[in-house]
């Protein structure tokens, strides 16, 4: 079924919601309906349907798929997750590295290099999320 929601209309609210014939399946009521729940799999967000991201909402921005996650951050996250250096919550990464060094645990030097150069996140990956 072709989706018709690629904002063909200008400010037309109906363009945001896929219209369906009343005879087929569960109908989605018209644009006054605020319900996002839908029992038809074609409407589900798991298919990354355009209903989830109406194009006008993303017309001036880029999709947030990257999430600041690159190779360096991956190295730092592995350092966070390594239990040998203790829990990562509650300390900045550099403090945790310094403490691991002071305790004689020999933390990896490239982590130190990345942290001191400093463009990356100074807090652990759970910071602000728990």
């Amino acid at each position, binding site marked *: 079924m072709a989706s018709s929601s690629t904002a063909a209309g200008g400010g037309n609210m109906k363009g945001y919601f896929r219209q369906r014939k009343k005879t087929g399946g569960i109908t989605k009521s018209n644009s006054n309906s605020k319900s996002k729940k839908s029992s038809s799999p074609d409407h589900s967000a798991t298919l990354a349907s355009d209903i989830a991201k109406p194009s006008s909402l993303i017309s001036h921005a880029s999709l947030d798929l990257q999430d600041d996650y690159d190779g360096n951050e991956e190295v730092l996250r592995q350092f966070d997750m390594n239990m040998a250096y203790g*829990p990562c919550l*509650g300390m900045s990464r550099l403090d945790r590295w310094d*403490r691991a060094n002071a305790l004689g645990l020999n933390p990896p030097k490239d982590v130190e290099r990345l942290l001191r150069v400093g463009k990356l996140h100074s807090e652990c990956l759970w910071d602000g999320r728990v």
Partner: protein
Amino acid sequence: MEAMELDSEDNLQRKQCLYQSLDESFAIRKEMYRGQQYSQIYFARLHLMRTLLYSLLPNWKPHLPVCTVLELEEGKECIIVGTLYKHMKLKPSILDEYSKERSATPLVKPHNFMHPDDDLVLEDESGRVKLAGTVLIPSIYVTGIVVAVQGKETVGGDFLVEDVLEAGLPHQEEQPLESGEDKYVVFVSGLSVGSSSSNPLQFQLLVDHITGHLGDEMEQRVAAEIVQVVIAGNSVEVPHGLLNGQNLASKDQSRLSEPIKELDILLTQIAASVPLDIMPGLNDPANFALPQQPLHRCLFPGSSAYNTFRSCTNPHSFELDNIRFLGTSGQNIDDLEKYSDAKDKLDIMERTLRWRHIAPTAPNTLAFLCG
């Protein structure tokens, strides 16, 4: 009767001592409580103490293997090292306020939360195991001590303890014995100036004795051997009735500051004659959590004019003539007394030496600001 001359030939001189403060680790610079996790403290403590205990194991039971809690096998004799956790039935928990019914536990005694059913659990990074057996008596131990235990795992999953090793007393340096010279440090605490039970005459008597205004020449010789005075907390008692959050009338404001002013007058007399260290205590106007920061200089306008007056942290550590002193105003010992059993407080202090930790119950039951 001989005339008392102000400048007699044998003017007694007070003995001198080299003083060095070791309080830097207790000073809070920019650290704030940001909702830190206690897990960091326990990790650091376990790591440092475990390294220490591992170095002692070869002298204790060298033939037995050391393993972590997860590596325990049933029936295998081994040694495990970890932090003790004492599960206490009567320990006050904030969640009790929300429990629908107060269960049949007896009324909480405010002075001691011990119960015959308390049990000990040993925990390291990999896991925890319940400790069984009669060797480890729960009433002596508290949460937060790091020990090594030897024994084996039972069928039920507990660890049957056969022997325990504490960190023990640290190595003492040999002090060269110097002939003849006796020097004394005076420790005072609980002056509670401003409380109904404090007697200003008694404090004045102490001041007179320290400064050498009391007694004949023999007494004055003894007083001249005092090289340091340390006031270890609870020096003032602010009238609590005024501290209820309401705005204070000006006469109440002066009542609030009376005890500190009175203390300052007396401390000025001491500071004029001997080096004086003052530490904050539980009732003093300082922060609540350990390490308590020094009382502010503005509280002591008279005494702080002297360079012999030092306001110090709690805990306080200093070195006098190469002998190291470390002490607190007692909150740690009081807390230990609530959670363990001992003949007297000196016994508890000895235990903190043997455990090599002055405040094992921090941050569990003793307020502590971790850095």
